[in-house]
């Protein structure tokens, strides 16, 4: 019984990390309909830049996080304006291929720059254990879960309570009508992509302080993020969170009770089952959009 609680706690912690890493993708895939295979590489760049800012520049964690957010936001904006904008109306295929090319380029260029070694991002607090009744977690993980929650709430508020968020929702409901009422949709697309990039890179830096940032991690992160987005339904905030938690708990229980070698298969099995039986996600009411 105590073991079960521990597995559940571990699963929920990993699950909230999954939710955060998938949040950026749910914006880009769910709203912009760009199947972004470079998502994991954007996450990876966040981790590598975080390592660079905290160890090489000697910044503290939060200043580093801010720097990463600003730099990657600008990067995301430029990717959209220079690359994705040109293939906006050509369907998914062009986007898939473009982002695959981008991910190959980013991963290998980063490999040339920093090598394959795991890079440790300086954590803001110690990694000592924290006891919650029978459950043991590290303080650092609890802190990361709190930051995850903050970032998710921040992203939700941006979309639902700001002027930019309102023009985003308008643009993705009907781009033509949005243009007619004076929204600069090109900027809105770029801002959405930039926001997705910022969230992905912040997740990369945050989790780089717990695990470590590694150049080769991109593919795995992309796959897990796709799993979460499919489970939760595209473009749905609540769905991404629920999908992330579900995946985290399912993996923790499977790894704990059945077999550790097969853990990664769960996500894909869940995706296949979801797409066959509920193609719009487990929780989505089909029309629901962020």
């Amino acid at each position, binding site marked *: 019984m105590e073991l079960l609680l521990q597995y559940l706690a571990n699963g929920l912690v990993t699950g909230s990390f999954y939710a955060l890493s998938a949040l950026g993708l749910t914006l880009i895939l769910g709203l912009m309909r760009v199947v972004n295979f470079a998502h994991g590489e954007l996450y990876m760049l966040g981790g590598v830049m975080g390592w660079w800012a905290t160890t090489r520049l000697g910044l503290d964690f939060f200043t580093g996080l801010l720097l990463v957010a600003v730099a990657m936001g600008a990067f995301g904006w430029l990717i959209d304006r220079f690359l994705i904008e040109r293939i906006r109306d050509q369907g998914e295929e062009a986007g898939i291929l473009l982002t695959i090319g981008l991910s*190959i380029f980013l991963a290998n260029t980063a490999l040339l720059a920093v090598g394959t070694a795991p890079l440790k991002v300086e954590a803001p607090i110690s990694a000592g254990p924290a006891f919650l009744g029978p459950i043991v977690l590290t303080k650092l993980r609890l802190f990361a879960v709190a930051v995850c929650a903050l970032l998710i709430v921040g992203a939700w508020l941006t979309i639902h309570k700001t002027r930019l968020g309102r023009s985003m929702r308008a643009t993705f409901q009907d781009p033509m009508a949005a243009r007619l009422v004076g929204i600069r949709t090109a900027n809105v697309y770029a801002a959405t992509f930039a926001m997705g990039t910022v969230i992905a890179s912040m997740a990369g830096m945050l989790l780089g302080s717990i695990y470590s940032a590694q150049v080769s991690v991109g593919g795995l992160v992309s796959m897990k993020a796709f799993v979460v987005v499919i489970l939760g339904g595209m473009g749905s905030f609540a769905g991404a969170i629920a999908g992330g938690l579900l995946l985290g708990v399912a993996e923790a229980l499977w790894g704990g009770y059945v077999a550790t*070698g097969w853990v*990664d298969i769960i996500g894909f099995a869940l995706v296949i089952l979801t797409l066959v039986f509920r193609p719009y996600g487990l929780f989505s009411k089909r029309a629901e959009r962020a």
Partner: protein
Amino acid sequence: MKFERNFLFGFLALAALVPFVVRDQYLLHIAIIVLFYAVLATSLNLVVGYVGEFSLGHTAFLGTGAYAAAILSTQHGWPMWATVPVAGALAAAMGVVIGAITLRLQGPFFVIVTLSFAEVLRLVADNWIGLTNGPMGIAGIPQPAMLAEAGNLGAKQFYYAVAWGVLAIALYLSYRFVHSNAGRAAVAIRENRFVAQSIGVRPLTYSMLALVLGAFLSGMAGGFYAHYISFVGPEMFRFAFMISMIIMVLIGGKGTLVGPLIGALLVTLLEEYLRETKELRLSIFGLAVIAIVLFLPQGLMGFAQRRRERRMPTAASTKLATPATGRAA
């Protein structure tokens, strides 16, 4: 259509001459790899180009074929002439299963579910140690006995001949499929699913046919590859193979039979050429992919087509009237 048929015959005829002219083992190896990729690109093109759904799970069939050939020949002692067709048949069976599930979905959903199937099979190959020997892979896949006295060059020539045969079968079957009623029905689905349905074309039937044919061909290619390299590991399911295949199909031009051949030739040679600049190679590759998407969206064949249409405005107007078949001409 005439150009297409002549080109395919010409390509095969030229390819048949290669082993008589080239005596260098390294060059012959590259030629074999070109033929192998030509089969793969042709088979992927059946799904991407003619059904119009973007499959990222084609390695599932390649890997199934390779493992089938490896297991049948190492554990059951089957000879190569039997394993390669059986590998194709097993991959086709896998195609029926996967297609029945995935082809009900479209767009990004199809992309991700096919990718998931390939990943699941990779994990199975990685973890089902009793059958697949896990991450160690299956080594020492036997070569045909007659190659023992033929020497290295003779072995290469033999494999070249087999690869040529597989490619000839692939091109023949694809050509027959594309220019049959079934192929035209698949193109109708690609151009407009709803119109196709309204005239009585059932999308699932014809997209399934194309997918299973593609699976059969790439399974044969996988079986061939297993014997040629004489090692099979879970890397067969890796995304890297998939990326090469996709790039070949799209550089050449999807929805044409000629395009994938050109793509396979170009990309394999480019990869070999860039091997000199080892570390930068993949970065350059990524940039090349981006450039293709931005500047050559229909591939080289589409580019050539547009050049021709611009030069002959009268021909262009007749082409516009039949956009579906016009591309294949």
